[in-house]
């Protein structure tokens, strides 16, 4: 049994039962497999939890690298393209992510240990983007601060994840707008001229909030 079908069964189990399997043994027995099959790939369920996020991230990166346009994109465009594809990739797991968010009550928690492997992989990717941006002059090379940009991008990633989870717009087009706007803000913050975009985004969120109350 390969990792991705193991992941699929694991997700399926949780969605159908509303909780994690009691043990690896019971879980594998239900699949008519031995627990050795499981331990050959993962040490426990927590490892599988972490693998889920890394898996989605890697799948997104593969698709990005296969895209002919991607290489020619500016740093900001690369990041947007990543978010667009990432949210698209997550779509097939939406029920599962909603289930995870539901369990932690307040959406996906950034401190969740399951996110940490994904976080490291993303930070690598993000610092690449930032240095491309610096090289092309799209990102200001500010002493000590430039090093921290990638952490800002990680916060943005989680923000977009939770935005997407709550998005009720048709075809999730509000998520697309949020990506476009946050990436613009992010790069303005990293470059110059920040207020325009912050205000634009504020208005966007304000209208949305108003809509959901009326």
């Amino acid at each position, binding site marked *: 049994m390969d990792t991705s079908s193991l992941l699929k069964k694991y997700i399926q189990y949780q969605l159908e039962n509303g909780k994690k399997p009691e043990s690896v043994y019971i879980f594998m027995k239900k699949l008519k497999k031995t627990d050795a099959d499981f331990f050959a790939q993962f040490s426990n369920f927590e490892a599988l939890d972490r693998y889920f996020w890394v898996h989605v991230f890697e799948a997104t990166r593969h698709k990005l690298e296969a895209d002919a*346009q991607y290489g020619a994109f500016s740093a900001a*465009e690369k990041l947007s393209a990543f978010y667009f594809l990432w949210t698209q990739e997550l779509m097939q797991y939406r029920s599962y992510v909603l289930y995870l968010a539901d369990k932690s009550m307040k959406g996906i928690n950034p401190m969740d240990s399951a996110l940490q492997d994904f976080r490291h992989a993303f930070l690598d990717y993000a610092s690449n983007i930032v240095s491309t941006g610096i090289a092309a002059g799209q990102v200001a090379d500010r002493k000590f601060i430039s090093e921290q940009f990638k952490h800002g991008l990680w916060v943005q990633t989680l923000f977009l994840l939770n935005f997407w989870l709550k998005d009720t717009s048709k075809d999730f087009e509000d998520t697309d707008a949020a990506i476009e706007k946050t990436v613009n803000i992010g790069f303005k913050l990293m470059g110059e001229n920040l207020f325009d975009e912050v205000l*634009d985004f504020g208005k966007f969120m304000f209208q949305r909030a108003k809509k959901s109350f009326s």
Partner: protein
Amino acid sequence: MKTQERIPKTRIERAAHIAGAGVKVGGNYMKHYAKKLVNADVSREELHKDNAGDIYETLSTLKGSALKVAQMMSMDRGILPREYQEKFQLSQYSAPPLSAPLVAQVFRKAFGQPPTAFFDDFTSKAVAAASIGQVHKARAKEKWLAVKIQYPGVANSIGSDLRMVKPFAVRLLNMNKNDIDNYFDEIEGKLLEETNYALELKRSMELSAACTHIKNLIFPQYYPKWSSDKIITMDWLDGLHLKEFLANNPSQEVRNRIGQALWDFYDFQIHILKTVHADPHPGNFLFLEDGTVNIFDFGCVKEIPDRFYTPYFRLVDRNIYKDSEKTGAIFRELELLHADDTDADIAFFTPLFKEMINMLTLPFTKETFDFGNETYFSGIYQFADKLIDMPEVRNSKKARGSRHSLYINRTYYGLYHILFDLKAVVNTGNRIFY
């Protein structure tokens, strides 16, 4: 056009901006009347110029449907004096661009693949802006195509943008709140329709097909397989916008040919199809030196209900005015007069409406009409000015005129305006295509 220093984005900030224009306009009026006290010769024209500058500066810092409303107001020449016109028309050509990844995303959501999967060439940057989206140039084999892509979330912002412009319109256009509410419903409905590209595609194909027989008109071919509710793909069109076209000094013959084609196009739609391309804005046409016109952008289409069509066009017949009872009945059908109007109201408004209708329908009553006729047009503007100056009109608490008239009048104003700019002499009397 000077580049914007910054774009106001929050609702509050935008609202504040609009209030700013209101205050400034108020100031301009004050200045006008103060000057007039000292010197009676100060022209309204100067006042309008001051106002237009301030309003334009305010509106041009807005985006989205506020921009669209500016465009609407700029169409309605009867409401808006000439000095406001040219400035507002600039607003047609600016909008925030979508990033290349977002364009790819819109494509992926519609067709599962980015544009590069369908086209041999696809400009990563937009080649032209539309008020709710942008146009990319693409190539599939030998064919050059125009791909129009809509900005996500436009439909959601229309309601709130219109609510913001409303108080502003009340002040600036001397329209009362009743009129505005009545008309804003109609405008909001039409704007929402414009965000539905699937509907636009369907209408574009139907109306183009129905009008292909009209001479000197060129319609692009549309490609449903590359279109969705956010994307419309059609043939790439050459040609010049009205202003640039006229800058090349086309001959009178070419102007007439184009004027005739446009006249026939509208005549046929209004009287035969009863469905009309209700956005005769110069930006929606491309003119060619050989006297042909490219027509595209059927985003705004008005269907004319019979209960409006019949009374409206009965008024073209001058004999009807001899019978004041009949005239009154028609005015009531068109909601120009209301059942609860006093005798004084009727006595005041009836001749005004007669004069207005006489003026607007004048081209229908002639065999040929010279749209280059300055006196005709300045007569219309003077009349509009006269209306604005009348306290009875300004203080009227009732809406006058059916909501359907909004887009029909706009269509005629727009058409007349283009024909006036073309200085075309048009055969308006005989309907050659019947």
